[in-house]
Protein backbone atom coordinates (compact mmCIF):
# COMPACT_ATOMS: atom_id res chain seq x y z
CA UNK A 1 0.00 0.00 0.00
CA UNK A 2 1.29 3.38 -0.89
CA UNK A 3 1.55 5.81 1.98
CA UNK A 4 2.39 9.43 1.43
CA UNK A 5 4.76 11.52 3.48
CA UNK A 6 5.54 15.21 3.40
CA UNK A 7 9.23 15.22 2.59
CA UNK A 8 11.35 17.81 4.38
CA UNK A 9 14.88 17.44 2.97
CA UNK A 10 16.49 20.22 5.01
CA UNK A 11 19.25 22.54 3.87
CA UNK A 12 22.18 20.16 3.95
CA UNK A 13 20.47 17.54 1.80
CA UNK A 14 19.81 20.06 -0.94
CA UNK A 15 23.35 20.05 -2.22
CA UNK A 16 26.09 19.23 0.26
CA UNK A 17 24.63 15.86 1.22
CA UNK A 18 22.94 15.12 -2.07
CA UNK A 19 23.81 11.43 -1.64
CA UNK A 20 21.47 11.19 1.32
CA UNK A 21 18.69 12.97 -0.56
CA UNK A 22 19.08 10.76 -3.65
CA UNK A 23 19.21 7.53 -1.66
CA UNK A 24 16.22 8.44 0.53
CA UNK A 25 14.15 9.12 -2.58
CA UNK A 26 15.31 5.91 -4.27
CA UNK A 27 14.73 3.69 -1.27
CA UNK A 28 11.26 5.07 -0.67
CA UNK A 29 10.39 4.64 -4.35
CA UNK A 30 11.70 1.07 -4.31
CA UNK A 31 9.43 0.34 -1.36
CA UNK A 32 6.39 2.02 -2.97
CA UNK A 33 6.25 4.87 -0.48
CA UNK A 34 5.39 8.23 -1.96
CA UNK A 35 7.27 11.34 -0.93
CA UNK A 36 5.85 14.77 -1.66
CA UNK A 37 8.37 17.50 -1.01
CA UNK A 38 6.93 20.33 1.07
CA UNK A 39 6.65 23.31 -1.22
CA UNK A 40 8.84 26.23 -0.21
CA UNK A 41 10.03 24.77 3.10
CA UNK A 42 12.50 26.85 5.10
CA UNK A 43 15.50 26.05 7.28
CA UNK A 44 14.41 24.51 10.61
CA UNK A 45 16.85 26.73 12.52
CA UNK A 46 18.97 23.75 13.56
CA UNK A 47 20.49 23.60 17.00
CA UNK A 48 21.91 27.09 16.50
CA UNK A 49 18.77 29.20 16.51
CA UNK A 50 17.68 27.78 19.86
CA UNK A 51 20.67 29.56 21.38
CA UNK A 52 19.47 32.96 20.25
CA UNK A 53 15.75 33.50 20.67
CA UNK A 54 13.36 30.79 21.66
CA UNK A 55 10.12 32.19 20.26
CA UNK A 56 11.82 32.97 16.97
CA UNK A 57 13.43 29.54 16.79
CA UNK A 58 10.07 27.90 17.36
CA UNK A 59 8.27 30.10 14.83
CA UNK A 60 10.86 29.41 12.14
CA UNK A 61 10.58 25.68 12.65
CA UNK A 62 6.79 25.74 13.06
CA UNK A 63 6.33 27.28 9.62
CA UNK A 64 7.31 23.91 8.17
CA UNK A 65 4.98 22.04 10.51
CA UNK A 66 2.17 24.35 9.43
CA UNK A 67 2.90 23.72 5.75
CA UNK A 68 2.83 19.96 6.32
CA UNK A 69 -0.36 20.24 8.33
CA UNK A 70 -2.02 21.83 5.31
CA UNK A 71 -0.96 18.80 3.28
CA UNK A 72 -2.45 16.55 5.95
CA UNK A 73 0.64 14.33 6.03
CA UNK A 74 3.35 13.28 8.46
CA UNK A 75 6.66 15.04 7.95
CA UNK A 76 9.60 12.86 7.02
CA UNK A 77 12.87 14.55 7.99
CA UNK A 78 16.07 12.59 7.26
CA UNK A 79 18.46 15.06 8.91
CA UNK A 80 18.78 14.29 12.62
CA UNK A 81 19.05 17.94 13.50
CA UNK A 82 15.88 18.86 11.59
CA UNK A 83 14.16 15.83 13.09
CA UNK A 84 15.01 16.89 16.64
CA UNK A 85 14.24 20.57 16.16
CA UNK A 86 10.87 19.91 14.51
CA UNK A 87 9.94 17.35 17.20
CA UNK A 88 11.03 19.72 19.93
CA UNK A 89 8.88 22.49 18.48
CA UNK A 90 5.92 20.15 18.50
CA UNK A 91 6.60 19.21 22.10
CA UNK A 92 7.02 22.74 23.41
CA UNK A 93 3.98 24.03 21.55
CA UNK A 94 1.98 21.09 22.81
CA UNK A 95 2.91 21.50 26.45
CA UNK A 96 3.09 25.27 26.90
CA UNK A 97 -0.14 26.94 25.70
CA UNK A 98 1.34 30.45 25.97
CA UNK A 99 4.09 29.41 23.60
CA UNK A 100 1.59 27.91 21.20
CA UNK A 101 -0.31 31.18 21.17
CA UNK A 102 2.85 33.26 20.65
CA UNK A 103 4.10 31.11 17.81
CA UNK A 104 0.76 31.20 16.07
CA UNK A 105 0.65 34.96 16.44
CA UNK A 106 3.98 35.10 14.62
CA UNK A 107 2.92 32.57 11.97
CA UNK A 108 -0.18 34.64 11.24
CA UNK A 109 2.13 37.30 9.80
CA UNK A 110 2.86 34.82 7.04
CA UNK A 111 -0.76 33.81 6.67
CA UNK A 112 -0.23 30.49 8.43
CA UNK A 113 -1.33 28.77 11.59
CA UNK A 114 -0.42 25.50 13.22
CA UNK A 115 -2.73 23.47 15.41
CA UNK A 116 -0.18 20.85 16.42
CA UNK A 117 -1.26 17.89 14.33
CA UNK A 118 1.83 17.16 12.27
CA UNK A 119 3.80 14.08 13.28
CA UNK A 120 7.52 14.33 12.77
CA UNK A 121 9.10 11.13 11.53
CA UNK A 122 12.58 9.94 10.68
CA UNK A 123 13.01 7.69 7.62
CA UNK A 124 14.51 4.92 9.78
CA UNK A 125 11.35 4.96 11.88
CA UNK A 126 9.09 4.92 8.81
CA UNK A 127 11.00 2.12 7.14
CA UNK A 128 11.09 -0.13 10.17
CA UNK A 129 7.74 0.69 11.76
CA UNK A 130 5.40 1.65 8.91
CA UNK A 131 6.82 -0.31 6.00
CA UNK A 132 8.15 -3.04 8.25
CA UNK A 133 11.16 -5.33 8.11
CA UNK A 134 9.25 -8.17 6.43
CA UNK A 135 8.04 -6.00 3.58
CA UNK A 136 11.55 -4.64 3.11
CA UNK A 137 13.09 -8.12 3.09
CA UNK A 138 10.67 -9.22 0.40
CA UNK A 139 12.16 -6.57 -1.87
CA UNK A 140 15.79 -7.16 -1.00
CA UNK A 141 17.66 -8.27 -4.09
CA UNK A 142 21.29 -8.29 -3.02
CA UNK A 143 22.84 -9.96 -0.01
CA UNK A 144 25.24 -7.69 1.84
CA UNK A 145 27.50 -10.69 2.00
CA UNK A 146 29.04 -10.30 5.42
CA UNK A 147 29.96 -6.64 4.99
CA UNK A 148 31.21 -5.46 8.38
CA UNK A 149 29.10 -2.53 9.43
CA UNK A 150 29.47 -0.11 12.35
CA UNK A 151 25.99 1.35 12.91
CA UNK A 152 26.31 4.95 14.02
CA UNK A 153 23.00 6.48 15.08
CA UNK A 154 24.39 9.71 16.49
CA UNK A 155 22.72 11.63 19.23
CA UNK A 156 19.75 13.53 17.87
CA UNK A 157 17.44 10.84 16.56
CA UNK A 158 17.23 8.99 19.86
CA UNK A 159 17.39 11.94 22.22
CA UNK A 160 16.26 14.01 24.09
CA UNK A 161 12.95 12.18 24.27
CA UNK A 162 12.26 8.58 23.69
CA UNK A 163 11.25 8.50 20.07
CA UNK A 164 11.25 5.31 18.05
CA UNK A 165 14.27 3.45 19.33
CA UNK A 166 16.20 2.85 22.53
CA UNK A 167 18.10 5.89 23.77
CA UNK A 168 21.24 4.10 24.88
CA UNK A 169 21.32 1.13 22.58
CA UNK A 170 19.17 1.66 19.49
CA UNK A 171 18.85 -1.47 17.38
CA UNK A 172 16.78 -0.67 14.29
CA UNK A 173 19.72 -0.34 11.88
CA UNK A 174 21.36 -3.38 13.46
CA UNK A 175 18.30 -5.50 12.86
CA UNK A 176 17.77 -4.16 9.35
CA UNK A 177 21.26 -4.75 8.04
CA UNK A 178 21.82 -8.05 9.81
CA UNK A 179 18.77 -9.38 8.03
CA UNK A 180 20.13 -8.01 4.76
CA UNK A 181 23.23 -10.15 5.22
CA UNK A 182 25.55 -7.64 6.84
CA UNK A 183 27.65 -8.33 9.90
CA UNK A 184 27.15 -5.76 12.63
CA UNK A 185 30.39 -5.11 14.47
CA UNK A 186 30.50 -4.25 18.15
CA UNK A 187 30.06 -0.49 18.18
CA UNK A 188 29.53 0.82 21.69
CA UNK A 189 29.80 4.43 20.48
CA UNK A 190 26.67 4.19 18.39
CA UNK A 191 24.95 7.11 20.15
CA UNK A 192 28.05 9.11 21.15
CA UNK A 193 27.96 12.70 19.90
CA UNK A 194 30.13 13.72 16.90
CA UNK A 195 30.28 17.28 18.22
CA UNK A 196 28.13 18.73 15.47
CA UNK A 197 29.03 22.37 14.96
CA UNK A 198 31.95 22.08 17.38
CA UNK A 199 34.05 21.22 14.33
CA UNK A 200 33.64 24.87 13.40
CA UNK A 201 33.63 26.54 16.81
CA UNK A 202 35.95 24.33 18.88
CA UNK A 203 37.90 22.43 16.28
CA UNK A 204 40.27 20.62 18.69
CA UNK A 205 37.36 19.11 20.56
CA UNK A 206 35.48 18.25 17.38
CA UNK A 207 38.48 16.44 15.92
CA UNK A 208 39.03 14.46 19.08
CA UNK A 209 35.42 13.31 19.31
CA UNK A 210 35.47 12.11 15.72
CA UNK A 211 38.80 10.39 16.11
CA UNK A 212 37.28 8.34 18.92
CA UNK A 213 34.32 7.37 16.75
CA UNK A 214 36.59 6.32 13.90
CA UNK A 215 39.04 4.37 16.01
CA UNK A 216 36.26 2.50 17.76
CA UNK A 217 34.96 1.38 14.34
CA UNK A 218 38.41 0.49 13.10
CA UNK A 219 39.38 -1.50 16.18
CA UNK A 220 36.25 -3.54 15.80
CA UNK A 221 37.01 -4.32 12.19
CA UNK A 222 34.32 -2.29 10.44
CA UNK A 223 34.45 -2.01 6.63
CA UNK A 224 32.06 0.91 6.70
CA UNK A 225 30.36 3.23 9.17
CA UNK A 226 26.69 3.68 8.43
CA UNK A 227 25.04 6.87 9.64
CA UNK A 228 21.66 8.59 9.71
CA UNK A 229 22.75 12.21 10.02
CA UNK A 230 24.31 14.71 7.58
CA UNK A 231 26.33 16.43 10.27
CA UNK A 232 27.81 13.16 11.56
CA UNK A 233 28.52 12.18 7.97
CA UNK A 234 30.29 15.41 7.20
CA UNK A 235 32.37 15.40 10.37
CA UNK A 236 33.42 11.78 9.99
CA UNK A 237 34.08 11.91 6.27
CA UNK A 238 35.24 15.38 5.28
CA UNK A 239 37.48 15.74 8.32
CA UNK A 240 39.06 12.28 8.18
CA UNK A 241 42.15 13.72 6.45
CA UNK A 242 42.52 16.36 9.08
CA UNK A 243 42.07 13.83 11.88
CA UNK A 244 44.80 11.71 10.31
CA UNK A 245 47.21 14.60 10.07
CA UNK A 246 46.41 15.87 13.57
CA UNK A 247 46.61 12.59 15.45
CA UNK A 248 49.00 10.74 13.17
CA UNK A 249 46.43 8.07 12.36
CA UNK A 250 45.69 6.32 9.07
CA UNK A 251 41.94 6.07 8.93
CA UNK A 252 40.39 5.39 5.56
CA UNK A 253 36.90 4.35 6.52
CA UNK A 254 34.06 4.92 4.06
CA UNK A 255 31.02 6.58 5.61
CA UNK A 256 27.67 5.69 4.08
CA UNK A 257 24.14 6.76 4.76
CA UNK A 258 21.94 3.92 5.89
CA UNK A 259 19.70 4.60 2.90
CA UNK A 260 22.67 4.21 0.55
CA UNK A 261 23.45 0.78 1.94
CA UNK A 262 19.80 -0.22 1.99
CA UNK A 263 19.54 0.99 -1.60
CA UNK A 264 22.30 -1.45 -2.58
CA UNK A 265 20.45 -4.28 -0.84
CA UNK A 266 17.24 -3.31 -2.64
CA UNK A 267 19.02 -3.53 -5.97
CA UNK A 268 18.84 0.16 -6.79
CA UNK A 269 21.42 0.96 -9.49
CA UNK A 270 24.43 2.28 -7.62
CA UNK A 271 24.75 5.45 -9.67
CA UNK A 272 21.34 6.57 -8.42
CA UNK A 273 22.40 6.39 -4.77
CA UNK A 274 24.79 9.31 -4.88
CA UNK A 275 28.00 7.34 -4.35
CA UNK A 276 29.76 9.77 -6.65
CA UNK A 277 29.30 12.41 -3.95
CA UNK A 278 31.48 10.54 -1.44
CA UNK A 279 34.95 11.80 -0.61
CA UNK A 280 36.17 8.43 0.58
CA UNK A 281 35.71 5.64 -1.98
CA UNK A 282 33.44 2.88 -0.73
CA UNK A 283 36.14 0.26 -1.17
CA UNK A 284 36.36 -3.15 -2.75
CA UNK A 285 33.86 -4.87 -0.51
CA UNK A 286 30.97 -2.55 -1.22
CA UNK A 287 31.92 -2.20 -4.89
CA UNK A 288 31.81 -5.95 -5.36
CA UNK A 289 28.24 -5.98 -4.08
CA UNK A 290 27.10 -3.50 -6.67
CA UNK A 291 29.10 -4.94 -9.58
CA UNK A 292 30.20 -1.42 -10.30
CA UNK A 293 33.64 -0.15 -9.54
CA UNK A 294 34.08 3.10 -7.66
CA UNK A 295 37.56 4.44 -7.95
Amino acid at each position, binding site marked *: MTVKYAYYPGCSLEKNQRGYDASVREVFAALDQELIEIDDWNCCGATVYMSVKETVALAVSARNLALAEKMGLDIMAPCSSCFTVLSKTNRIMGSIPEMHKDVNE*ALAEGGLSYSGKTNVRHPLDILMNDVGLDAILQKVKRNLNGLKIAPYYGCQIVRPDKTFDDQENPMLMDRLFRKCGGEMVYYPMKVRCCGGMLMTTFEDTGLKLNRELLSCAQENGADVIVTTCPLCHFNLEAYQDKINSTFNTEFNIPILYFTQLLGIALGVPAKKLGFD*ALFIPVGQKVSSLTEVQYA
Partner: protein
Amino acid sequence: MMTKSEADLRQIFLDQVDLIPAGERISRCIQCGTCTGSCPVSYAMDISPRQLLAMFRAGEMEQIMKSRTIWICASCYACTTRCPSGIKITDIIYALKRTAIEKNMESVAPQVQRLARLFTENLMSYGRLHEGTLIRKYYMKTNMLKFIDLIPLARKMWKTKRLQPFPKRIKEQKSLARIIRKAQEIEMRHTKETLEYAPDFVGYRGLGELKLEQRKGE
Protein backbone atom coordinates in the same frame (compact mmCIF):
# COMPACT_ATOMS: atom_id res chain seq x y z
CA MET B 1 22.78 39.84 49.05
CA MET B 2 23.27 39.52 45.34
CA THR B 3 24.63 42.29 43.20
CA LYS B 4 22.18 44.02 40.91
CA SER B 5 23.61 42.43 37.81
CA GLU B 6 23.56 38.96 39.39
CA ALA B 7 19.92 39.43 40.27
CA ASP B 8 19.07 40.63 36.76
CA LEU B 9 20.85 37.72 35.20
CA ARG B 10 19.10 35.34 37.48
CA GLN B 11 15.76 36.79 36.55
CA ILE B 12 16.33 36.58 32.83
CA PHE B 13 17.52 33.04 33.28
CA LEU B 14 14.54 32.05 35.43
CA ASP B 15 12.20 33.45 32.80
CA GLN B 16 13.90 31.29 30.24
CA VAL B 17 13.67 28.23 32.51
CA ASP B 18 9.95 28.85 32.86
CA LEU B 19 9.61 28.34 29.14
CA ILE B 20 11.23 24.90 29.22
CA PRO B 21 8.77 22.04 29.64
CA ALA B 22 9.64 20.56 33.06
CA GLY B 23 12.27 23.30 33.47
CA GLU B 24 11.50 23.67 37.19
CA ARG B 25 13.02 20.26 37.81
CA ILE B 26 16.34 22.08 38.05
CA SER B 27 15.53 22.24 41.77
CA ARG B 28 15.72 18.46 42.06
CA CYS B 29 19.48 18.17 41.46
CA ILE B 30 21.07 15.65 43.81
CA GLN B 31 24.62 16.45 42.68
CA CYS B 32 25.31 12.87 41.60
CA GLY B 33 27.46 13.87 38.62
CA THR B 34 25.80 11.55 36.09
CA CYS B 35 25.58 14.53 33.73
CA THR B 36 29.30 15.22 33.91
CA GLY B 37 30.13 11.55 33.49
CA SER B 38 27.86 11.23 30.45
CA CYS B 39 29.03 14.38 28.70
CA PRO B 40 31.40 13.71 25.79
CA VAL B 41 32.94 17.18 26.12
CA SER B 42 33.03 17.66 29.89
CA TYR B 43 36.79 17.13 29.78
CA ALA B 44 37.07 20.37 27.85
CA MET B 45 34.79 22.40 30.14
CA ASP B 46 35.98 24.72 32.89
CA ILE B 47 32.86 24.12 35.00
CA SER B 48 31.34 20.67 34.79
CA PRO B 49 27.57 20.36 34.27
CA ARG B 50 27.16 19.18 37.88
CA GLN B 51 29.14 22.16 39.15
CA LEU B 52 27.10 24.45 36.97
CA LEU B 53 23.88 23.40 38.70
CA ALA B 54 25.49 23.84 42.12
CA MET B 55 26.69 27.30 41.16
CA PHE B 56 23.26 28.31 39.99
CA ARG B 57 21.88 27.28 43.36
CA ALA B 58 24.57 29.33 45.08
CA GLY B 59 23.75 32.40 42.98
CA GLU B 60 26.96 32.51 40.96
CA MET B 61 25.30 33.47 37.73
CA GLU B 62 28.02 35.76 36.48
CA GLN B 63 30.64 33.09 36.79
CA ILE B 64 28.46 30.62 34.94
CA MET B 65 27.92 33.08 32.13
CA LYS B 66 31.66 33.65 31.83
CA SER B 67 32.36 29.95 31.54
CA ARG B 68 33.45 28.04 28.49
CA THR B 69 31.00 25.32 29.46
CA ILE B 70 27.81 26.84 28.09
CA TRP B 71 29.39 27.40 24.67
CA ILE B 72 31.06 24.05 24.23
CA CYS B 73 27.88 22.06 24.90
CA ALA B 74 27.02 20.47 21.55
CA SER B 75 23.47 19.70 22.74
CA CYS B 76 23.69 15.92 22.34
CA TYR B 77 21.30 15.46 25.29
CA ALA B 78 23.28 12.58 26.86
CA CYS B 79 23.03 14.27 30.28
CA THR B 80 19.32 15.00 29.91
CA THR B 81 18.55 11.40 29.01
CA ARG B 82 20.45 9.99 31.95
CA CYS B 83 19.68 12.48 34.72
CA PRO B 84 17.99 10.48 37.49
CA SER B 85 16.08 13.60 38.56
CA GLY B 86 14.79 14.31 35.06
CA ILE B 87 16.50 17.69 34.83
CA LYS B 88 16.52 19.16 31.31
CA ILE B 89 20.18 20.06 31.48
CA THR B 90 20.68 20.64 27.76
CA ASP B 91 17.70 22.97 27.59
CA ILE B 92 18.99 24.77 30.68
CA ILE B 93 22.30 25.33 28.93
CA TYR B 94 20.39 26.68 25.92
CA ALA B 95 18.63 29.06 28.31
CA LEU B 96 22.03 30.19 29.62
CA LYS B 97 23.27 30.78 26.09
CA ARG B 98 20.20 32.85 25.33
CA THR B 99 20.66 34.84 28.54
CA ALA B 100 24.28 35.57 27.62
CA ILE B 101 23.36 36.60 24.10
CA GLU B 102 20.46 38.72 25.29
CA LYS B 103 22.65 40.55 27.80
CA ASN B 104 25.35 40.83 25.16
CA MET B 105 27.83 39.48 27.69
CA GLU B 106 31.46 39.15 26.92
CA SER B 107 32.24 35.54 26.36
CA VAL B 108 35.27 33.31 26.40
CA ALA B 109 33.99 31.85 23.15
CA PRO B 110 32.77 34.80 21.08
CA GLN B 111 33.00 32.62 17.98
CA VAL B 112 29.91 30.66 19.02
CA GLN B 113 27.84 33.81 19.30
CA ARG B 114 29.29 35.00 16.02
CA LEU B 115 28.24 31.79 14.32
CA ALA B 116 24.79 31.93 15.87
CA ARG B 117 24.27 35.51 14.71
CA LEU B 118 25.48 34.83 11.19
CA PHE B 119 23.24 31.80 11.07
CA THR B 120 20.19 33.86 11.95
CA GLU B 121 21.12 36.56 9.41
CA ASN B 122 21.51 33.88 6.78
CA LEU B 123 18.07 32.52 7.53
CA MET B 124 16.53 35.98 7.54
CA SER B 125 17.88 36.81 4.09
CA TYR B 126 17.41 33.51 2.28
CA GLY B 127 15.05 31.33 4.30
CA ARG B 128 17.39 28.40 3.88
CA LEU B 129 20.89 27.98 5.15
CA HIS B 130 23.58 28.65 2.59
CA GLU B 131 26.59 26.94 4.09
CA GLY B 132 29.05 28.67 1.78
CA THR B 133 27.99 32.17 2.83
CA LEU B 134 27.84 31.23 6.50
CA ILE B 135 31.27 29.62 6.63
CA ARG B 136 32.91 32.35 4.53
CA LYS B 137 31.56 35.14 6.73
CA TYR B 138 32.34 33.21 9.90
CA TYR B 139 36.01 32.66 9.10
CA MET B 140 36.42 36.13 7.62
CA LYS B 141 35.41 37.51 10.98
CA THR B 142 37.12 35.03 13.27
CA ASN B 143 40.14 33.56 11.57
CA MET B 144 41.19 34.41 8.02
CA LEU B 145 43.95 31.80 8.00
CA LYS B 146 41.49 29.03 8.73
CA PHE B 147 39.53 30.13 5.72
CA ILE B 148 42.50 29.49 3.48
CA ASP B 149 42.87 26.14 5.24
CA LEU B 150 39.43 25.19 4.01
CA ILE B 151 40.15 25.67 0.31
CA PRO B 152 41.08 22.01 -0.33
CA LEU B 153 37.81 20.93 1.28
CA ALA B 154 35.85 23.41 -0.82
CA ARG B 155 37.56 22.06 -3.96
CA LYS B 156 36.63 18.51 -3.05
CA MET B 157 33.05 19.62 -2.55
CA TRP B 158 33.07 21.40 -5.88
CA LYS B 159 34.42 18.34 -7.67
CA THR B 160 31.75 16.10 -6.19
CA LYS B 161 29.04 18.65 -7.04
CA ARG B 162 28.28 19.28 -3.40
CA LEU B 163 28.95 22.98 -3.35
CA GLN B 164 26.13 25.37 -4.00
CA PRO B 165 27.90 28.44 -5.34
CA PHE B 166 25.16 30.99 -4.71
CA PRO B 167 22.47 31.21 -2.08
CA LYS B 168 18.90 30.63 -3.18
CA ARG B 169 15.94 32.40 -1.67
CA ILE B 170 12.77 30.59 -0.81
CA LYS B 171 9.71 31.95 -2.63
CA GLU B 172 8.06 33.20 0.54
CA GLN B 173 11.22 34.66 2.03
CA LYS B 174 9.47 37.95 2.74
CA SER B 175 6.68 36.27 4.60
CA LEU B 176 9.20 34.24 6.62
CA ALA B 177 11.03 37.45 7.47
CA ARG B 178 7.76 38.93 8.69
CA ILE B 179 7.18 35.86 10.88
CA ILE B 180 10.68 36.22 12.34
CA ARG B 181 10.25 39.93 13.05
CA LYS B 182 6.91 39.32 14.72
CA ALA B 183 8.38 36.55 16.87
CA GLN B 184 11.22 38.87 17.88
CA GLU B 185 8.69 41.48 18.87
CA ILE B 186 6.78 38.97 20.99
CA GLU B 187 9.98 37.88 22.67
CA MET B 188 10.87 41.50 23.47
CA ARG B 189 7.44 42.03 24.96
CA HIS B 190 8.06 39.21 27.41
CA THR B 191 11.48 40.47 28.39
CA LYS B 192 10.16 43.92 29.23
CA GLU B 193 7.35 42.58 31.38
CA THR B 194 9.51 40.32 33.43
CA LEU B 195 12.39 42.62 34.24
CA GLU B 196 10.25 44.36 36.83
CA TYR B 197 10.43 41.26 38.97
CA ALA B 198 14.19 41.15 39.57
CA PRO B 199 14.50 38.84 42.58
CA ASP B 200 17.06 39.04 45.32
CA PHE B 201 17.54 35.51 46.48
CA VAL B 202 19.45 32.36 45.71
CA GLY B 203 18.64 28.67 46.05
CA TYR B 204 15.61 27.51 44.17
CA ARG B 205 13.24 30.31 45.03
CA GLY B 206 11.79 32.11 42.09
CA LEU B 207 11.32 29.01 40.01
CA GLY B 208 7.88 28.88 38.48
CA GLU B 209 6.89 31.90 40.55
CA LEU B 210 7.11 34.21 37.63
CA LYS B 211 4.09 32.77 35.89
CA LEU B 212 2.09 33.00 39.11
CA GLU B 213 3.03 36.63 39.71
CA GLN B 214 2.28 37.54 36.15
CA ARG B 215 -1.10 35.96 36.39
CA LYS B 216 -1.83 37.81 39.61
CA GLY B 217 -0.87 41.04 37.90
CA GLU B 218 -3.09 40.43 34.91
